[in-house]
């Protein structure tokens, strides 16, 4: 059996990659995909622990995260499309109207 450490290290690596993408990429669609990556890194952690403890609490949490991620993707993509229609761009650096 693969030790849990490997799962956790893989999840941490995925999470850091996702976060890096969120912070530095400018295309909103790519930012979205990076957010999904972070969520799935968390899912991986949950499942790893669930397997270690031999119960299904982690599975439950993972399903919740998947549901939330689906909702987030639906609404987020709708927003991205709406923004693209009104501005002709999905570059996050250009969307800065919410400021003082």
């Amino acid at each position: 059996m693969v030790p849990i450490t490997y799962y956790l290290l893989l999840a941490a690596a995925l999470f850091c990659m996702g976060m890096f993408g969120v912070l530095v990429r400018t295309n909103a669609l790519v930012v979205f995909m990076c957010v999904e990556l972070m969520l799935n890194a968390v899912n991986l952690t949950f499942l790893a622990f669930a397997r270690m403890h031999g119960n299904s609490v982690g599975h439950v949490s993972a399903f919740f995260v998947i549901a939330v991620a689906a909702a987030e993707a639906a609404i987020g993509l709708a927003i991205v499309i709406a923004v693209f229609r009104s501005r002709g761009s999905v570059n996050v650096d250009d969307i800065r109207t919410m400021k003082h």
Partner: protein
Amino acid sequence: MDGSLVEFFRTAPIPPEVFSPSLGLIILLPLLGAFVCGVFGKWLGRANVHLVACSAIAGAFVLSLLAFWATSDAAGGRVVSMVNPFGLERDTIRYAIAHDYGTWFAAGDFRVNFGLLVDHLSGILLLIITGVGFLIHLYSTSYMEHDDGYWRFFAYLNLFVAAMLTLVMADNLVLLFVGWEGVGMASYLLIGFWYTDSAKAWAGRKAFVTNRIGDFAFLIATFLLILTVGAFNRQADARDYNAAGSSRARYEQGISQRGPVTFKGLEKMALALPEGTGGAVSLATPIESGPLAGYTFGGVMTAALLLFLLGAAGKSAQLPLYVWLPDAMAGPTPVSALIHAATMVTAGVYLFCRMSSLLVLSPTAMATIAIVGALTSLLAALIAFAQDDIKKVLAYSTVSQLGIMFMGVGMGVFWAAAMHLMTHAFFKACLFLGAGSVMHGNGDETDIKKLGGLWKEMKWTHATFLISTLAITGIFPFMSGFFSKDAIFHGVHHNHLHGLEWVSTFVYVMGLLITASTAFYMSRVYLLTFTGKRSKEAKLAHAHESAWHMTLPLVILAFLAFVTFVYALPLMPRTGGGMQPVFENFLSPVLRPAEAVARAAETVHLDTSTPAVGDYFFAWLVALSGGAAAAFAYLKFFPSRVGQPVPAFARAVRRTAVNKFYVDELYEFIIIRPVKFTAFILFRVVDALVIDTVLVRGTAYVTEKVGLGLRRLQTGDAQAYAAIMALAILGGAVYALLQVLS
């Protein structure tokens, strides 16, 4: 008298034990009347409001009569009596009925019950309040016939009667205070009844604020008594309770069931406090624990009684708080008759009669009361010399007569003070209603210089005014006022406060001066208003006599003012030989504890002699001299000098008296101005600067500036926000890691 007739009067129509649970109805009826008139009066119409208001008082009068009858019930030789809740089983209260409606409120071991008590003292007052009150309601139906606020007027009047009945029937100080405040409020509402006239509205405010000072003192005094009762209960031993005809178990039971400030409980404490009881507690014993630790029982009692004096001075218009009463004449005249002459202003006298057993423990407090009464009385009488407004003269006369009652209370002649309270209610109400009738028939003219010669045009008003004037002055001796006043002055002369013997003489001499002054100013009012020729400055060429609604109460009150003198005649046997006045005999069940305390404590020597014929003759001469002086001045001296300047002496006297000895100006200078100045400073510094500027506007200013600075951080760059969040989470994770590792 026929035996069966005696038996008839001794048997109450409704037996006391059946009637006593209905005592609350006496208060409830006028309260209901006030509610109906106040809420629905506008829709009911004038005649219905008259019906409701008058019948509520008439109903209360009938119930009061039944209650009064029940307190004198002695059917089959068995006197009505009840067990004293604070005494032993065999210790009964005779000639009284009571009903306890249960706890009103309780906090910790302190409680107040809604308990009503009617004995001979409160019974008399019940009859005065509802009886005179009914006559004045009847009178008002005619007097207020042109006023649009009739429903408001009758609602207030009924409310007043309800509050006053609560005051006299309360069996404890707190419930009495409810009535005390209630009458104050009703008085305020009625003085400022014509509130669109700002002078009248101010008069109402002046009365209210002045009364408030007194009420504050009343409350503090009540708190002192509560603490004293607690201390007494902790320190007293069996001999103390024994001297009061009680035991520790019974007394504590009484306090836990009825509360510490019932009059019967206070009476028991007063009986236990004199030195002679040999118990652990006496007047000189220091209080051991509690907030009053270190002070003696006697000292606390004196302080409490002096505070009660201040409270009573507010309500009963004595020095230094009498200034509101003359201004209170701004209200409608029936109000002046009912509230500011017959009933409310006598509340202070009633309070001291009710607490007579405590009062006789402190000669200092008694002397203060007597001296305050004497000074007030003389000052008010002198001011009344030169007032031209007929109602103002009567107002100062009321202050003066109340001062006489205070002299009586202060020197321990409680029965005479209570009797003067009763006779004064009759003749002063009659005088005020007579003045109202004069105003009604003369186009609201109140200046006696512009009246005159009314005896031909207003026959009934004239006759009743004359009888009442004779009663108040004592110029014709066989009138109630002569006898009640003389009873007070006789008692004042012969009672002695131990250690303060000079007070008797001082107060007695003042009393003689007051008698002469009263005769002078009342004769002056009568002569200028009713005799002589009609003044050329009169508003109407001919006065008209008032309707029967107004004259009938006058006739009844004048009749009562005449006949009640029989109560002062020594017709009843005294225990221990001799005869005593009817009224003293009548009140003896109420005042016996005070006599017992005075005897045991040796603080007051209460004289029981009755005036001899020579004493009466002397008093008559004094009154006659005042009346004769007025007759000389206003029938002979001034009329013969028409067109000539008034002598300088008379002018100087008049100027001071007209200006009321500058008391209002003095108060303006030493109290109102400094208070106004302090208020101004507080307004400018505390309110305008600290609260408005620093706290209110300062908070807004700081919030705004901080917000302006912080909004620079809001760049709109979502990734920058995300970076900050990530760094924060990283920081948190590092911290958690360090915590785990260390």
